[in-house]
């Protein structure tokens, strides 16, 4: 039987002698939504980039027993919104079709099937009526849904999302969360960077809490504890108890 875990062993990344992240190890089961949380500068994006093999790192990463290079077509990536040039001349349907690019051989054009797959993904995120719009004309939440559609069109097994919930409307958030849950039920695995601490329990099954080093990883109820959060956020977060609800006020 194939290996069921994403394993990260002693992962470290250094920039010019500065440590960005050090000795991070965790193991996440297939079919879960994993939140990667920590304060600004904790190395969340670095961790994700190292896992994707975009950053030189020490240690070992394996996806269901595979090296990243054998998994690339099966990994979808949703970028942070501020890393995209929203004036770029592409329309919504062009962006979603990019999710099919790695499946199309270089000598072929995008087939009708590829286009249908992209269209279906767009319908799923409720953005089909915007397919002819230039991407910069959409709201933040709509843009995020389009990029999620691109990831869906890719037919991936693993999803990496960088801050998908920043600056989006309630409806988009709801649609995205529903799709993530649906993907989990189909056995897909998701890693999601999330920088504030609100709604952590609503979004994720598992957490990786870090601040350069791993603070704690595991089920949300085990990791989302005042002591660990204090350790990760140090003085930058106040933690209040409101009945059973825990509220964390970020910096």
């Amino acid at each position, binding site marked *: 039987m194939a290996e069921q875990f994403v394993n990260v062993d002693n992962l470290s990344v250094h920039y010019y002698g500065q440590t960005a992240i050090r000795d991070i190890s965790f193991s996440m089961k297939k079919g879960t939504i994993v939140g990667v949380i920590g304060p600004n500068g904790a190395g969340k994006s670095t961790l994700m*980039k190292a896992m*994707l093999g*975009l950053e030189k790192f020490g240690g070992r990463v394996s996806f269901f027993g595979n090296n990243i*290079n054998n998994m*690339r*077509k099966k*990994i979808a*990536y949703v*970028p942070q919104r501020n*890393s*995209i*040039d929203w004036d*770029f*001349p*592409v*329309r919504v349907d*062009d*962006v979603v079709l*990019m999710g099919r*690019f*790695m499946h*199309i051989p*270089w*000598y072929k054009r995008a087939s009708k099937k590829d286009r249908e797959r992209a269209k279906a993904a767009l319908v799923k995120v409720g953005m089909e009526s915007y397919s002819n*719009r*230039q991407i910069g004309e959409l709201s933040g939440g709509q843009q995020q849904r389009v990029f999620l559609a691109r990831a869906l069109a890719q037919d991936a097994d693993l999803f*990496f999302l960088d801050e998908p919930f920043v600056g989006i409307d309630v409806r988009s958030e709801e649609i995205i969360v529903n799709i993530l849950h649906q993907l989990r039920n189909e056995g897909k695995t998701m890693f999601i960077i999330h920088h504030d601490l609100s709604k952590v329990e609503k979004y994720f099954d598992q957490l990786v809490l870090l601040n350069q080093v791993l603070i704690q990883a595991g089920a949300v109820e085990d990791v989302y504890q005042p002591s660990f959060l204090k350790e990760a956020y140090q003085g930058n977060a106040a933690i209040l108890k409101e009945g059973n609800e825990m509220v964390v006020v970020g910096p």
Partner: protein
Amino acid sequence: MIANIESFIFQLMNYPYLQNALLAAILVGIICGVIGCFIILRGMALMGDAISHAVLPGVVIAYMVGASFFIGAVITGVLTALAIGFISQNSRIKEDSAIGIMFTAMFALGVVMITALQGTSVDLWHILFGNVLAVSQTDLYITMGIGIFVLLTIFVFYRPLLLSSFDETMAKATGLPVKWIHYMLMLLLSFVTVASLQTVGIILVVAMLITPGATAYLLTERFSVMLFLSALFGIISAVSGLFWSVIYDVSSGASIVLVASAIFIFFFFFAPKQGLVFKWLRTPKRESKIS
């Protein structure tokens, strides 16, 4: 005006050198327009300027040793691109500064070499500003070869080029060799610069790279359409620029660039969606009073 056009057509039919010039100018308009779109969207306008200036010493050396100026230019163009990458990756110097250092150094080297060779057949003025009317049959073949190569490369690698220009991180994550794509574009850029040497010259190549593409950028929301429009504006600039230069006996390269600039200015104000005039008209009165 009609008489001028008739005279231009008459000359065109009777003088083969003018036919060569027109063909070369059209080809340059197309390939500069197409490569220019990538240069604009990847924020590499300064790089375009750099590579075009950096080919100068290569051209001079090629003249000195009697080799094809094409080879010399491509070598120094690519070397400069590599050197810029090397400097910015191995020091705290940012890329734009590295570009500033390298291209002026290369250009100065070229100028020193030319002035040292005074009295030979190397004509600085022609290299710097082009002389499309001196395009030989061989030059035309070289330009055609470059044109076909560049267009074919872009056609074949359209998807990787688009993805890596739009979302570099995803491109890397899906395993595309993003660095190689960058250097491939630099190579194409050197080719295009060389092909444009005689038409518009080193100094003005960057205008043919940036201006038609920028105009197209104001008019469309699709990358494929932008490529097409940019090439179209390149052709229009080439043909009408050559026309003005023949009729009024002025520099061909500069006329071509002026036409491209005029088209840009027109659409800067009157493009349906992005044009300034229509943006003003769309602004509600209330808001404009506040500002």
